[in-house]
């Protein structure tokens, strides 16, 4: 409940400020250009491990969290099933496509299996959303968590389609135009392209009539209904869009690890997505990516870091938890909020009040 409320308060000024200027807000921002260039030339800077395990993983997790940000930030609906939708899509790629489990996989080429997976996962997410929109606040969280948990236990015990706890191994990845698209550098660019596409799509939606109506539904559903908007239809449509985004990320995830098993769709992993979104901030689409970067760095290096400073490496989860606690404690709207406040405090001494672009 409080989560949705916080988002509501924080977003309003940003949304109002954006309304008059119907342009891409990033075009005039040098920082955005620098980040874009760095992301594009990343393969020159980073080696295979950093490129895939850190940056590509960040982009994939960030895209799943982005779908949650769309629902929570603009729609006021906190859905814990976004990872489940991504996982469903990943499983479908493995089931329809090529894998080492020949008795399960149908062996379709990737260009048939992927659209099928995306379509099924979007339908799955939309149906889940149609159930969830009948509830509000904490009940939405609970019903989506229930869908996530049910899916996890189902995959864990179903051997006919999901191959139980073992999962599906050696999933095929696309090769065409003479390129192995799972090789580090091509794969990074695929992930980057999909991530950028989703990011700009969400950014566009936030300013398109549909997105504005969605934010209206979030702020005052009764008034929107009185104005003639179909409140539930808007919410379900938001779930459909978010499901498609999550499904795209799911396809990338299964290509990344070439295997999928119930551990990838566990309840803990669902909650990780919520943590990523909260830590990054759910007021703007960039937030989930920042959160994902922090999450991936902590998850990868906490153990090494503890061992290096001479502590017991077994306590690395504690370090991760403390990191997240610190961020949420000092900024209830995530890293984005910290950044905004820092910008404002920089501006005040320079005596430039009333900057409507506090959101950067």
């Amino acid at each position: 409940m409080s989560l949705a409320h916080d988002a509501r308060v924080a977003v309003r000024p940003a949304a109002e400020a954006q309304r008059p200027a119907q342009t891409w807000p990033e075009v005039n921002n040098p920082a955005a250009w620098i980040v874009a260039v760095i992301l594009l030339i990343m393969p020159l800077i980073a080696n295979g491990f950093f490129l895939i395990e850190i940056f590509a993983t960040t982009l994939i997790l960030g895209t799943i969290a982005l779908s949650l940000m769309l629902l929570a930030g603009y729609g006021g609906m906190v859905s814990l099933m976004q990872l489940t939708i991504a996982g469903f899509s990943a499983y479908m790629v493995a089931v329809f496509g090529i894998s080492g489990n020949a008795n399960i996989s149908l062996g379709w080429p990737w260009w048939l299996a992927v659209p099928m997976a995306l379509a099924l996962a979007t339908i799955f997410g939309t149906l889940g959303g149609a159930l969830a929109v009948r509830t509000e606040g904490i009940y939405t969280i609970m019903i989506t968590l229930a869908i996530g948990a049910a899916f996890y236990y189902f995959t864990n015990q179903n051997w006919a389609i999901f191959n139980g706890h073992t999962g599906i191994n050696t999933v095929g990845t696309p090769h065409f135009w003479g390129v192995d698209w799972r090789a580090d550098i091509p794969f990074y660019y695929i992930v980057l392209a999909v991530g950028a596409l989703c990011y700009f799509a969400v950014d566009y939606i936030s300013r398109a009539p549909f997105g504005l109506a969605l934010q209206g539904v979030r702020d005052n559903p009764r008034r929107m209904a009185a104005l003639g908007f179909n409140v539930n239809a808007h919410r379900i449509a938001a779930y459909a869009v978010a499901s498609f985004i999550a499904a795209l990320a799911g396809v990338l995830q299964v290509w990344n690890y070439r295997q999928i098993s119930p551990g990838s769709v566990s309840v803990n992993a669902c909650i990780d997505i919520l943590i990523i979104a909260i830590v990054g901030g759910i007021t703007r689409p960039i937030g989930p990516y920042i959160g994902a970067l922090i999450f991936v760095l902590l998850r990868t290096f906490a153990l090494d870091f503890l061992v290096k400073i001479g502590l017991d490496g077994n306590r690395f989860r504690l370090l991760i938890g403390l990191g997240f606690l610190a961020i949420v404690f000092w900024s209830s709207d995530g890293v984005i909020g910290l950044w905004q406040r820092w910008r404002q405090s920089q501006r005040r001494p320079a005596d430039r009040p009333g900057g409507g672009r506090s959101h950067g």
Partner: protein
Amino acid sequence: MLRGSVGLIALSSLLFSGTAFAQEKIKVGVTATLEGTYTVLGEDGIRGFQTALNVLGKKVGDKELEFVIASTDATPDSAVRAVRKLIEQDKVQILLSPLSGDEGIAVKNFAKTHPELTFINAASGAQETTYVDPAPNFFRYNMDGAQWQVGLGKYAYDEKKYRKIATVGEDYSFIYTQVFGLVLEFCGAGGQVTNRQWVPLGTKDFASVIAALPDDVDAIYLGLGGADAVNFLNQYQQAGGKAHLMGGSIMIDQTILSSKGNAKNALVGTLAASGQADTWEDPGWQKFVKDYQDAFPPNKRFPSPSLLATNYYGSTMALILALRQVNGDLSDNQSKYKAALAKIELDAPNGKIKLDANRQAIGTNFVTEVVDDGKGALFSKVVKVIPNVNQTLGYDPAVFAKIGLPSRTVPECKKY
């Protein structure tokens, strides 16, 4: 000025020797389940690994072994992630991984994408790992779950006169393999397995499982491990369960026998089979137990090494001894090293081990019974030793292939 340049030369020579030294290192990645249900098993695996290093040393010729440890949680995803981190970030050349059954299947498949590296299985025991489509660079020096059950079914039928049993096991590949081994032998001898229950890994509430246990059986076989096994025993005792018990290889193991509380007392007299027996008289085993006990203070270890410690010990032993045979030569995609690994015969603490054509261990198995040492500590006492157990369990490979792969319902309860 002079002093400064002398200092500089000294410093640079130090740095140079440092880099020269770094080139002489061989990096080995190790994974263990240090999170989740199997945490205790992973920790003891690492103890076995360290005991092996204490005994064998870290030197191979003039090269030094360097180890990087990564944590998993018994799920295949976590194992692949950990192995990838070790290869890509830490640049390890040899892997000692993984611990658990489904992790093994995933890591074996992953090993095929890195044919230049060498993967030595640490302790995982699913049959599929080395039986179906094995990876040429994946070596397993422990037996699989079915091999670890050899002798149990026959002993239960002939000596204990059990005729009907039911099983409760964790719902994943390793336990399927264990039940596979048990059912083949017990039903082959004429017994009946009337009921097979499967619970998800990490189950905490066993109330419905316990309620559904049949009453008209002579014994109940438990294929559980780690926290699941302790939870089951606690709840089974609270529910007043009194049936005869039989145990799988990680159920009747120090990871459970030395757990806190008195629920484990339900296990006294339980019949089990495993790749080791705590009280075996063999001098090699006794020496290993002593090495293990000397390496750690009593409150930081089990009274006697668990199956996981033994497996990690054996795998580490193979890793180091084969590396010494080729004098640390990892050139030509480690081909000499792989050839040495395939040929090596280990004098492991739990008996002689050699590899078959699929690079799967042929070793010794033990039927055991749980005894109280009089001071409240439980140990598995050896009642029967079976040498030279191979992966097809003595069946003709063609007959064995017809039985099918271990699953919830395979094998059927009949004589093959």
